[in-house]
């Protein structure tokens, strides 16, 4: 018995450095907004999935399933926590999708969260490096930005991608985020400032990198037949696909391509019967701006090596042919690691409902999200439609 799966409610906490709020505060906030938005009540929810990377190290708290259920007054409801580094949020969405599609669950609350500002910057750098192959990369001094710098350096070397193109991704995503009320940086930033910002791991500068962010995002998902009971504007998950690659970046065939993204995008398009040109809006994992350039190539918006040109020509602007990250992306919305994959789906649902206000992509009907774990060891792709 395979069933179609719908999203009937979305919610977000504010993203940013939220000194006055704890992990449980922001998780509850996002979940409650999603529940209010959907119109369901507590008794309708028969399962909870929560995506998180490293609450144990960031806050000292694990067992987030029980925490989420308890805080929401839903103790008794089964709650699962899932981890896939920076793709933990996407993994949570996919777990709920599979559970509902199979018939095991009917209506679920999906959460993603990360509280990153409760530790010092040094501890934060060390905790983020658990997403690398820690024994053979992080251990030798390769920070997470350094690994993306490895990709950027090769991309520049092989395809002539420029620092200016990497900076233009920042400019675009900050421009979009000024219209996103949940974003961490709701202000534009000029190209000269990006190009002159401090180097953290050459050629990557601080304004090419996503920030340290606290935040949570939530969805209410259910079977398509149930969705009509609660809303006139359900958004359907047309496909959900996932692929893996080597844990470490040095074992990859080619570090300018994420094979897991190529594979999972191909199967998601096939599953939904669509071609990439049928998609109206994209949320792509830009933890570093070179990531957005690589992903635009790997999902097929342009050929390998031309991703820099794409942003230069304005193709990925909100009013361009292929709008990428109207939310501001990880760069400007912020990147609370476990929340990101869920926040991408929240943005696509708002876009397809026509509720994205000033950052609305005109008439968007189909959306695609790519959520990456680590340096590409996990790729999770969702295609949504209304």
């Amino acid at each position, binding site marked *: 018995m395979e069933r179609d799966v719908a999203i009937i409610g979305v919610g977000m906490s504010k993203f940013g450095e939220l000194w006055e709020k704890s992990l449980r505060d922001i998780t509850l906030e996002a979940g409650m907004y999603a529940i209010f938005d959907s119109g369901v009540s507590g008794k309708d929810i028969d399962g909870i999935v929560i995506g998180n990377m490293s609450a144990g190290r960031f806050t000292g708290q694990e067992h987030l399933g029980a925490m989420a259920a308890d805080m929401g007054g839903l103790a008794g409801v089964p709650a699962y926590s899932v981890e896939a580094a920076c793709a933990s949020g996407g993994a949570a969405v996919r777990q709920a999708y599979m559970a509902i599609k199979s018939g095991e669950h009917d209506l679920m609350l999906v959460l993603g969260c990360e509280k990153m500002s409760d530790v010092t910057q040094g501890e934060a750098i060390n905790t983020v490096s658990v997403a690398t192959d820690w024994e053979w990369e992080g251990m030798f001094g390769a*920070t997470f930005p350094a690994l993306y710098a490895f990709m950027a350096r090769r991309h520049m070397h092989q395809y002539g991608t420029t620092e200016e193109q990497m900076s233009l991704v920042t400019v675009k995503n900050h421009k979009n985020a000024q219209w996103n009320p949940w974003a961490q940086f709701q202000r534009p930033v000029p190209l000269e400032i990006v190009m002159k910002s401090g*180097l953290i791991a050459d050629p990557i500068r601080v304004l090419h990198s996503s920030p340290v962010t606290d935040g949570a995002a939530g969805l209410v998902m259910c079977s398509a037949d149930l969705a009509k009971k609660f809303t006139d504007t359900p958004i359907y998950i047309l496909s959900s696909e996932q692929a893996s690659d080597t844990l470490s970046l040095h074992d990859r065939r080619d*570090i300018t391509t994420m094979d897991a993204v190529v594979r999972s995008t191909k199967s998601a398009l096939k599953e939904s019967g669509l071609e990439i040109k049928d998609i109206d809006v994209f949320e792509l994992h830009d933890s570093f701006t070179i990531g957005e350039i690589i992903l635009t190539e790997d999902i097929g918006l342009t050929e390998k090596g031309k991703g820099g040109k794409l942003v230069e020509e304005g193709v990925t602007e909100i009013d361009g042919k292929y709008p990428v990250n109207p939310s501001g992306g990880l760069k400007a919305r912020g990147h609370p690691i476990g929340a990101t994959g869920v926040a991408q789906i929240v943005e696509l649902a708002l876009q397809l409902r026509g509720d994205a206000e000033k950052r609305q992509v005109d008439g968007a009907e189909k959306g695609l999200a790519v959520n990456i774990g680590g340096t590409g060891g996990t790729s999770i792709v969702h295609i949504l439609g209304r």
Partner: protein
Amino acid sequence: MAEKPVAQFWRKIRSVYNIVGTHCKTCGEYYFPPRPVCPNCRRKGELEEYKFKGLGKVYTFSVVRQAPPEFKRQVPYVIAQVELDEGPRLTAQIVNCDPEDVHIGMRVRACFRKIREMGGGGIIVYGYKFEPTMKVTGHNKE
């Protein structure tokens, strides 16, 4: 990071001190870090220990300027993917040269160095870093 117990590092000493990986006799591929299963051949694979020559070239690199506490005193340092002559790539620091001089394709050889201390009272980890090869050794065929 808090102090780490010793065993996590002690059990890898063979590999990390001498660049010892594996070689699959079935498909001929070399692996570093060592792998317990050949991903090409899986159960048909036959892995044997292999000590790498420690020669290779820079495949890609970065200069780390924002580092975790254990590496703060080394900043700025060059971290690179080194492509070993036998094929596999590994991640290591490049030392004994000006960061400005490091470039893709630069010939390097392994040297034995202190990698890090695991916190204030923690153990000191040693292992491989790489340095530019010298012309006199004949390894400098860029």
